[in-house]
């Protein structure tokens, strides 16, 4: 299945990427599984494993156990600091 992934702020800078379109293998069907899937890419991607990095699926904040399905927009970012 295909998902659109977005990275923001310090995480975007650490990864050198604003996001990507990605085909996920069967079995990668949650935010937690997606993190693990991306971590194997190399040391820079350890930034994604920090517990403070939050996730949103389809623009709603979710826990790591949240399901990811075909066509979803998944975003990873550090704690927000607006206002």
């Amino acid at each position, binding site marked *: 299945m295909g998902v659109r992934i977005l990275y923001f*702020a310090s995480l975007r800078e650490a990864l050198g990427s604003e996001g990507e379109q990605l085909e996920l293998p069967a079995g990668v069907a949650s935010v937690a599984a997606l993190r693990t899937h991306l971590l194997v890419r190399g040391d820079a991607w350890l930034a994604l494993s920090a517990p403070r990095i939050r996730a949103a699926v389809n*623009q709603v904040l979710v826990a790591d156990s949240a399901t990811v399905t075909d066509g979803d927009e998944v975003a990873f*970012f550090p*704690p927000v600091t*607006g*206002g």
Partner: protein
Amino acid sequence: MELESISIRHADFDVGAEVEALSGAGTAGAVASFVGVVRGGGEQRDAVLAMTLEHYPGMTERALADIVVRARQRWALGGVRIIHRIGKLLPGERIVFVGVAGRHRHEAFAACEFIMDYLKTQAPFWKKEETAEGARWVDARDSDDAALARWQG
């Protein structure tokens, strides 16, 4: 007058016009508002020279609309107006405006602070500061999480 306005933009805003829009209908007796300003301009080596605000387009608007819905579930409110600027801002420049109209002042104050507390912890904005020593991403503050927890007790 539209009852609600949420705006994410580079341009500055006119506080007087915002408050006027909230009080204009004449049925609201109370308008509480908040303006956040870029601090800085100090003499220290790490004084903030400028700030850049990044956000997550789409999710930001959804998050702010959701915060207003939550506020209206708690209090009977008149108009609510939120403006958040993005891009590069200098010390002394306005960042955010939240204004709430209500029949009574306590509702207006409470809802305005509630919206700010949620915005600070739930809306996807990120600040990066420029100083003479370099640029740094602003860290989230525990006190903001504590402020949010007050409403969730």
